[in-house]
């Protein structure tokens, strides 16, 4: 496997992404969106598309930049650092893997469209408080040559901005994946006011008609297509969480070096030094797992499950520690809405649930490691 050190290309990509985001999408940008009641910034997304981010997993032949999963992780990580808002993971990571896994020339146009920024995708998989795709209850009933879908999907990230939903449902008791335009008759989406102020929808299907051509892959073939896509999404999310951890850490470290109490810079207090050092160690160790997951997805995707869940479990725990320590070490100011720390805490909490929580990933590690 390629070394876990960044390649030259990766270092350049990282520098570029960080530079762009610190200008175009710092935390103040998220704050301004929230205060304006907005959850999607089409201009920001257009710029990301322009830079080839939407096509990061799409081959150059299909109009993408074909940079791969490690690169997607670098972008997600950079976005995590500043809490940039975008439909990157569902649209640029999950959807492209799904359409490529389906091996159907029909999807070439969609892939090209994603790379060109024509589509925003959302994944409508979850139905309850925990990520559990294998236990999907939603049923698509056969009706002549078509299907009728009635029921609810929840926790649909980017579901309000999306023009296409990837919907998991059962046909004849077999998990089947549908690609449905969001304006199909009978689809109602409502904004969920999540703590992290990101675009998230509850999607109600009221006797929606689905056609044969909406099926991605085959009837009963959803998980074969979805599994690698979820793995890719989880790895990118882990990278985003690792980035989030380093974002709040830098904010906190800066504060510790500047804030004075009892006549001394508080960063000189040994107890706080040791806590900062421990947190940094956790971040370094998580970083390795996150990079490794990206490399595995690029180099042996069929063996990557353990690597992905390892990265996810580590990233969830590390981000939680980073935001908890971050808010506490800031003292009172960390509790105020006008300071940025709270935004990190809220996003970390949502990231710890989406696409599988710690228990989900730890259980997968346990199974794969023979526990």
């Amino acid at each position, binding site marked *: 496997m390629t070394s876990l050190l960044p390649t030259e290309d990766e270092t350049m990509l990282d520098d570029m992404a960080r530079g762009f985001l610190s200008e175009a999408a710092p935390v103040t940008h998220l704050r301004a969106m929230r205060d304006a009641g907005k959850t999607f910034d089409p201009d920001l997304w257009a710029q990301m598309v322009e830079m080839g981010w939407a096509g990061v997993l799409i081959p150059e032949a299909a109009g993408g930049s074909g940079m791969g999963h490690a690169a997607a992780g670098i972008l997600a990580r950079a976005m995590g650092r500043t809490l940039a808002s975008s439909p990157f993971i569902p649209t640029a990571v999950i959807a492209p893997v799904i359409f490529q896994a389906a091996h159907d020339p029909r999807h070439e146009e969609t892939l090209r469209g994603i790379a060109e920024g024509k589509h925003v995708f959302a994944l409508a998989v*979850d139905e*309850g*408080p*925990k990520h559990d795709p294998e236990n999907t209850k939603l049923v698509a009933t056969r009706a002549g040559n078509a299907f009728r879908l009635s029921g609810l999907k*929840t*926790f649909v990230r980017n579901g309000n901005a999306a023009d296409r939903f990837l919907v998991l449902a059962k046909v004849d008791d077999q998990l089947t994946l549908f690609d449905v335009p969001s304006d199909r008759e009978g689809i109602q989406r409502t904004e*969920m*006011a*999540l*703590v*992290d102020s990101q675009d998230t929808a509850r999607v109600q299907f009221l006797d929606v008609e689905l056609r044969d051509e909406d099926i991605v892959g085959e009837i009963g073939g959803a998980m074969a297509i979805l599994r690698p896509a979820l793995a890719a999404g989880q790895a990118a999310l882990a990278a985003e969480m690792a980035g989030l951890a380093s974002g709040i850490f830098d904010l906190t470290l800066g504060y510790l070096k500047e*804030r004075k*109490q*009892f006549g001394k810079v508080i960063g000189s*207090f040994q*107890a*706080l030094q040791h806590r900062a050092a421990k947190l940094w160690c956790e971040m370094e160790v998580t970083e390795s797992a996150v990079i490794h997951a990206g490399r595995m997805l690029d180099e042996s995707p069929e063996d990557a499950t353990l690597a992905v869940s390892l990265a996810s479990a580590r990233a969830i725990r590390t981000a*939680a520690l980073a935001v*908890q320590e971050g*808010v*506490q070490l800031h*003292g*009172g100011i*960390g*509790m*105020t*809405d*006008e300071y940025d*720390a*709270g935004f990190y*805490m*809220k996003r970390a*909490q*949502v990231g*710890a*649930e*989406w696409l599988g*929580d*710690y*228990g*989900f990933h*730890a*259980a997968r590690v346990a199974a794969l490691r023979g526990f």
Partner: protein
Amino acid sequence: MTDQGAQQTNEEFRTEARAWLEANCPTEMRDADNSEESVCWGGRNWSFQSDAQKVWLDRMASKGWTVPTWPVEFGGGGLTRDQEKILREEMASLGARVPLHGFGIGMLGPALLKFGTETQKQLYLPPIARGEIRWCQGYSEPGAGSDLASVQTKAETVGDNYVINGQKIWTSYADKADWMFALVRTDRDAPKHRGITFLLLDMTSPGVSTRPIRLISGRSPFCETFFDDVEVPRTQIVGEENRGWDVAKYVLTHERAMISGGRTGLTGGRPLASVLEGTSDPFLRAQAVGCDIDMMAMALTLERYKDKAKAGSIGDASSMLKYYGTELNKRRFELMMAAAGADALEWNGPYGSLPTDWLRTKANSIEGGTSEIMLSVIAKRVLEMPS
């Protein structure tokens, strides 16, 4: 102290208390809901959320049971520590809400009982007991953070008054309070801890203004408070001039004990086991059982330390209660959030105020002395480790 209860045995008292509560606690007040939103804080501007809330307060106040252990002459119940414990047990078994909540009861009252003049006790304690005056605490100042003794708000003597100028921060519910107990600097030349005075002031005095601070939870329980030439009679000093730090420290001890168990509701809220009902996640369960074990042990520790406090002073060991109680409460809310999953990520979603309450707990280990300060206090004053 008038101690009417001393003639009764504890069992007699229990029987009597149970009967009285059974007869007098309105049904609506028997839901055991002591969340910050549902309890009665009292004060001039209080809007009772229901008739039952008012009836319950009035009846309990008439028995002196809003402040069960205070002397009867100052509006208290004159109960012994054992009787108070029994009263709380009986209230809990009925699910009766705490009738009145606030900083007057938990913090200023005990300080007045110890440091106040007879006149001050007569003047201020009974209205606190009846929930007529709501108090706030004016200690922290911008930039001072944990260094509470670095008070900059100045009080200059002009005739029989002080004239106060300066700014306080993190004043809990200053926008809703009637009066404030505050630390002001009355001697700028004395060593830091020796030029501070503990004052009581009316929030309607000309020159007092407040501005709520929005927190990460979206709520604004704290304010900034500004003083612009505010006049306060010098009779409203508690303790001696320039010796306010002693009073403040005493109040802090009570505040810490209160935050550790009372206000953050260690025993309130849904029990962890019921929150976990929907999940079979073994990792979460293992952590939740561990947290439950620690919570039970902490509840016993609060009891033990209340008894200790009654038997003498617990002094700086209250820092342990504050540290452990607030850190544990944060852990509990993290687990409840994890157990509830995506349902708890929505403001006012299926779990109601859970996400708001979760974010609120993060302040527990900062307000009233950060966990770091508590640990340093324990190390230096309890364990006598060297500087």
